């Protein structure tokens, strides 16, 4: 519906602008705080215009937090989550949509139900698994009595162990194993006309060829959307890295590190709160997700323009 009346035009702009202002104000305040000195940031009334300490604050925040390592870690984790997620989602949905096998709907619903169980809800069992990724198998061995049998026969005690704590694998895998992407891909694959699948079969393309030559190019927009969402999601992880990583110096993630800069009783020990550093660090930490969104946005737009269906 496109209405063109002056009054509606003005009204839409007013709504848009107020929305923008509401979003911009906190960011502006964070930016201003990041440019002030310790004294200025703690003086009342609140300062609304930037000072000249931005660079100094950035450098100080960066050094205190050892952000170099943390950024690299987070980048590795976020990129791996994006790649893993897209690959997993794509091939799972491919199997669910284009192959007719027994229990297909059952499997789909089982995947779908996990949408209702975000990482935070299942964090205790997930932690248990991360502590020993083979523990489910160990449990099976014990419950079924196989372990007892092996022990009786050979005298060997089977103890499976694969510890994922303090590792990239431990950080990445639980974030990859969620249903959102699979669901998104399934819905997209369902819109692919049967005739296109059949045309590819007539042209001699096997399933993998079809996936690679037709489905993946057609789902570029989807990939861009999912990649953006997953990158931001992984970048902003707090709770899971906090639990699974005790070796912060080597495996720390930026958001956890950032929370250490936020002044509270523990960090300042009753001293003057260092908000200027916290805000400077926030600005830095925000940059990569913003860059990804801006970069990926071109793909969304191109995807929208080039819809030939």
């Amino acid at each position, binding site marked *: 519906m496109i209405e063109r009346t002056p009054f509606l035009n003005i009204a839409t702009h007013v709504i848009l602008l107020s929305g923008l202002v509401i979003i911009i104000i906190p960011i502006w305040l964070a930016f201003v705080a990041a440019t002030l000195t310790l004294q200025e940031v703690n003086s009342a009334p609140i300062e609304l215009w930037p000072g000249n300490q931005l660079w100094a604050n950035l450098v100080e925040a960066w050094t205190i937090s050892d952000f170099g390592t943390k950024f690299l870690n987070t980048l590795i984790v976020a990129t791996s989550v994006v790649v893993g997620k897209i690959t997993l989602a794509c091939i799972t949905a491919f199997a669910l949509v284009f192959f007719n096998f027994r229990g297909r709907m059952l499997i789909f619903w089982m995947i779908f139900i996990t949408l209702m169980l975000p990482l935070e809800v299942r964090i205790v069992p997930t932690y248990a698994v991360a502590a020993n990724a083979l523990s489910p198998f160990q449990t099976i061995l014990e419950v079924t009595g196989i372990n007892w049998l092996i022990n009786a026969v050979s005298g060997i005690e089977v103890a499976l162990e694969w510890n994922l704590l303090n590792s990239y694998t431990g950080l990445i895998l639980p974030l990859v194993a969620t249903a959102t992407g699979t669901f998104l891909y399934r819905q997209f694959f369902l819109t692919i*006309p049967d*005739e*296109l699948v*059949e*045309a*590819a*079969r*007539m*042209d*001699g*393309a096997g399933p993998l*060829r079809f996936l690679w*030559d*037709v489905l993946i*190019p*057609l789902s570029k927009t989807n990939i861009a959307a999912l990649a953006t969402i997953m990158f931001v999601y992984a970048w902003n992880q707090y709770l899971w890295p906090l639990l699974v990583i005790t070796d912060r110096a080597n495996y720390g993630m930026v958001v956890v590190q950032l929370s250490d800069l936020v002044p509270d009783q523990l960090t300042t020990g009753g001293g003057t709160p260092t908000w200027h550093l916290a805000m400077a660090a926030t600005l830095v930490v925000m940059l990569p997700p913003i860059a990804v969104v801006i970069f990926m946005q071109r793909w969304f737009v191109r995807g929208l323009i*080039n*819809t*030939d*269906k």
Partner: protein
Amino acid sequence: MAKISMRDVRKSYGKDQVVHGVNLEIANGEFIVVLGPSGCGKSTLLRMIAGLETITAGQIAIGDTVVNDLEPRERGCAMVFQNYALYPHMTVAENIGYALKVAGTPKAERMARIAAVAASVGLGDFLDRRPGQLSGGQRQRVAMARAIIREPRVFLFDEPLSNLDAKLRVQMRHEIRRIHNRIAATSVFVTHDQQEGMTLADRLVVMNKGVIEQVGTPSEIYDQPASTYVGGFIGSPAMNFLSGQVDRATHSVRLASGDRIDVSPAIAARNHGKLVQIGVRPEAMTMVPAGQGTLNATFEFVEELGAGRLYHMMFEDLTLTVLAGDRQTLAAGAPVGLHIPASAVHLFDADTGKRVEAAPLAVVEQVPA
């Protein structure tokens, strides 16, 4: 180049059987049109030949190979789909050449063949466009080119023209026939448009509810429909039907109204007392002054066709149509005589709907299972 033979081919979806034992021999290089109403199983039959649908029972052979268990790519068939099914993200050239790319044809050879095929269907200037930037007719040509480039033994068409406007449809029809003559592959063309079927086919296959009703050249099917179904389905405007009983003495069929319609003495002699349906094509009847014809009917209204006129009459509670070249002005409700010559009468058994002949006619035999 290959013949296709189908022996007692059946298809069921779960418990529903939708194709009930089709037997058909298609000669090498023949253009076969499968004609039938929506849902009669035409596409299913075609897709079983293509390998897109499993064959529940029976056997399909292409050339000398039974193809029941072969993958589509191993059957040497190319197919043109109703909605073209072009790859939206590929250019015209990529679309046309995709099968060759999958087959691993070297790039130089591929490009040369794409250019040649595209030129042959008039797409030379559009090679870099995407399907989304083409008109319906151009997309249709891309779909054809994509099929031609594989040099298939068998060409399959599933209502490829039904998304085009009337004029373009006729034009593409001619083009399809030209391509068929040039590359001489065996073609199977599915449509529910009888004009398309009549004009394209070497032989027509008329299907109804999953069985073949009749196979023959278009003129055989038009002149000697094997059943009331075929008679009513082929021909536009449609055949007129009347019920009656054969009488040997007057060699005629007596209608419930008491009127008599003459039939050939030979038929009458063989079928005395039989309850029949009479079929008469609208152009085979003539209008005469009331009282002088075989029947007396009441004029209702007229449809102008340009080349002729279609007169609608009421006879008892039936509507009869007469196609005539001359332009008469009649008042609604005016009495009209209808002349039906014995040579124009098609007789069908009232129970089975099968054609009744003076002597057994060489209708195409269905091979028993």
